[in-house]
């Protein structure tokens, strides 16, 4: 097991190195550059431009800049934002918990709603439940997130007044962040109603963010269940007179979960993409919006190091997902 984890971790190194190259190259291939964008309509004289470029080290050949960047990375220096001048790592750590909190809530809802829906749809194949839930899943999968988010805000916050419009907690609560996770910090603060406020602020963004993963998980669970339910061992289990709950809950579901877990793991990447839009609509201070802002400002250090951090985390999550296969499927454990 340990050797398995180590070999997986070893794979991360060349992959991360590849990511530094892609992230570094990608942002520089985009037209426009940070100095021009900072100067705006006013413009910047060639002398001043050269001066700033030299100060930032952008006057050197690109390969030298890249090697310098790698050297800094090895020393744990992720660079400073060109815009805020603050260390990239500090900014990332300030924003990352918000994204994780939203993402976790979304993926938990997606899994705990999506799997049962898929199972029931598979068992009651062709029923009205199956028809409606799978049509719903198709719609969810094709939903334009930005429009969907605004629609929910206008309906639930504007017209009905049930949920807050945006933010992470009501502004009447103020406590310094301890963990960065608002659900935990609001409990720690001991302020009356803070936790409820944090929960109410999570409702709409987590619905919007989990729309696509929920649809994918429900559909995937349904088709995996249908496949497994045709297998011999399920028929045998039925034939030997096991109660239906045991046939489905143990024999079918456990086997059907393997592709579903893979899907849930893959949805982490989808969540990152969804986070960009969701965070923008709901003024959610996370890393999705941070990345988009930094790309549009050509904030090279933030983009290259931010992408590296995000990719690293997504890979580690996928590694953890890989490991959980072993728990569910002994065949993989033994290999």
């Amino acid at each position, binding site marked *: 097991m340990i050797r398995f984890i180590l070999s997986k971790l070893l794979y991360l190194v060349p992959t991360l190195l590849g990511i530094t190259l892609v992230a570094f190259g990608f942002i520089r291939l*985009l037209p426009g550059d940070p100095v*021009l964008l900072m100067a705006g309509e006013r413009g910047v004289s060639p002398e001043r431009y050269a001066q700033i470029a030299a100060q930032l080290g952008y006057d050197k050949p690109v390969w030298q800049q890249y090697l310098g960047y790698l050297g800094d990375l090895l020393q744990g220096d992720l660079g400073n934002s060109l815009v805020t001048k*603050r260390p990239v790592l500090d900014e990332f750590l300030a*924003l990352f918990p918000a994204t994780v909190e939203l993402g976790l809530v979304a993926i938990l809802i997606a899994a705990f709603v999506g799997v049962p829906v898929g199972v029931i749809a598979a068992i009651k194949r062709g029923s009205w439940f199956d028809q409606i839930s799978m049509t719903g899943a198709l719609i969810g999968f094709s939903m334009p997130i930005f429009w969907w988010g*605004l629609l929910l805000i206008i309906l639930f916050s504007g017209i009905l007044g049930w949920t807050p419009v945006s933010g992470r907690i009501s502004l*009447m609560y103020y406590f310094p962040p301890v963990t960065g996770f608002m659900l935990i910090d609001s409990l720690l603060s001991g302020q009356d*109603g803070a936790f409820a406020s944090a929960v109410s602020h999570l409702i709409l963004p987590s619905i919007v963010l989990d729309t696509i993963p929920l649809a994918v998980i429900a559909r995937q669970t349904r088709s995996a269940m249908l496949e497994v339910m045709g297998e011999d061992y399920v028929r045998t289990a039925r034939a030997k007179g096991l109660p239906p709950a045991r046939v489905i809950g143990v024999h079918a579901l456990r086997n059907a979960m393997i592709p579903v877990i893979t899907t849930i793991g893959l949805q982490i990447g989808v969540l990152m993409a969804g986070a960009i839009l969701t965070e923008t609509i709901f003024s959610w201070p996370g890393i999705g919006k941070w990345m988009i802002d930094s790309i549009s400002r050509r904030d090279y250090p933030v983009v290259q190091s931010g992408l590296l951090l995000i990719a690293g985390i997504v890979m580690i999550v996928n590694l953890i997902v890989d490991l959980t296969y072993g728990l569910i499927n002994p065949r993989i454990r033994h290999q």
Partner: protein
Amino acid sequence: MSIFSPRMLAASALAVMAAAPLHAKTFVYCSEGSPEGFDPAPYTAGTTFDASGHAVYNRLVQFKPGTTEIEPALAESWEVSEDGLEYTFKLRQGVKFHANDKFTPSRDFNADDVIFTFERQANADHPWNQYLAGITYEYYSSMEMDKLIKSIEKIDDNTVKFTLNQPEAPFLANVAMPFVSILSKEYADTLEAAGTREDLNNAPIGTGPFRFVAYQKDAVIRYQKNADYWGEAPKIDDLVFAITPDASVRLQKLKAGECHLMPYPAPADLDDIRADPNLKLDEQPGLNVGYLAYNTTVAPFDNPQVRKALNMAMDKQAMIEAVYQGSAEVAKNPIPPTMWSYNDAVEDDAYDPEAAKKMLEDAGVTDLSMEVWAMPVQRPYMPNARRAAEMIQADFDKVGVKVKIVSYEWGEYLKKSMEEGREGAVILGWTGDNGDPDNFLSVLLSCASAAPGGANRAFWCNEEFSDLLARAKATSDPAERTSLYEQAQVIFKDQAPWATLAHSTQYVPMARNVTGFVQSPLGDYTFESVDLTE
């Protein structure tokens, strides 16, 4: 358990304490973006200045609320020498800097703070010049303060003398701008000793109407009223910036009572705002201009008659309706009507396609095809450049001129549009920094600004025009300056290096119970005078 158990009482006491800020008057502003930092000197975004320069700091002089006139601030008075080279500021006494948990000022504001503020930007060897990695002072450099200021002298604790290299009338307007907000030298020394220099940018200490409390990145900025404020104390107790980048979401927050005031509504939402009984909408002409700049160095656009003819072919009123949704006025001068020295006697080239066609023929221009550049971003002065370009295309087609619309990524757009020999005409605009006409005319239209790195995208160099600007800069007599700028606008109209398109209106939606908000022509959002009625 009785509902009056001690535990419940303790819990409700806690609840009262937690809710305490509610009893205080809290004003929530749904701001449009995150500040880049809280040191106003290295940054250029208005969003940053609202959060730092205007809330936390003061300057030597300031713009009188709602105007671009200069009035005393941290300098109580000033004298300008005969030759216009020496500015002697008498500083206000008894002004207190804010305190925070790591710093309590031991002295009042004085000349050392002024010198520190300017020197650290002016002098690359100053110990605070590079206190953040890769920091640059863009405004200080682009306003050419480095070339302008020869020396700054402390005469005594309450008197500072600036000596300039040449007379410069806009100097006072420049030192009213946020980039020269006065910092505390004592705070800087304290941070230096503690080894936390970056806190100058993270935990600002100023003399302004509000004391900085906390910033949660991309989410919330909190301020408290400065009870020791030297000016009229703010009427609200707490000021909160709730950062909300999307305009539609800002409006929803305003409607739901989650904030009291918001900037930059989407033009399409204006009718909805007007119809809402709980909201009111403040409007004011913005200090801006949207324009189409011809390349006056390339035939046939080097001929003023051709440029004028094209201007006459353009239905600008239709553009106001379609592009600005009516929230702008047709521009005839390069400076907006709210600016002093605006020459209202100038007559615009009237929309007349027939006459335009004839003028083009007379100038020997037939079968002309040209590029029109549409900027890829929205700005208050130009909310939809693509639509504007399409309308120009249709209008020019009627006079036999074929238009190809081009666009580039924003950074490229800015760069390529300043390249020598550029093809075609460029849609762009400008929003004033300090309310001085020189900040429009010299920056955008002088001979000097036609050089690489300038912003004169018409590459228009008219000696007579530039000479008028130079003379206006060298005199400090307002009447004389006004007359010179008025003459300059006549030359501009006659030579038509641009088609002046529009001056857009600034809208500020707010809750009905907000009083005392004064719109700034410069587009600043300041809250020292706001109040909330029941």
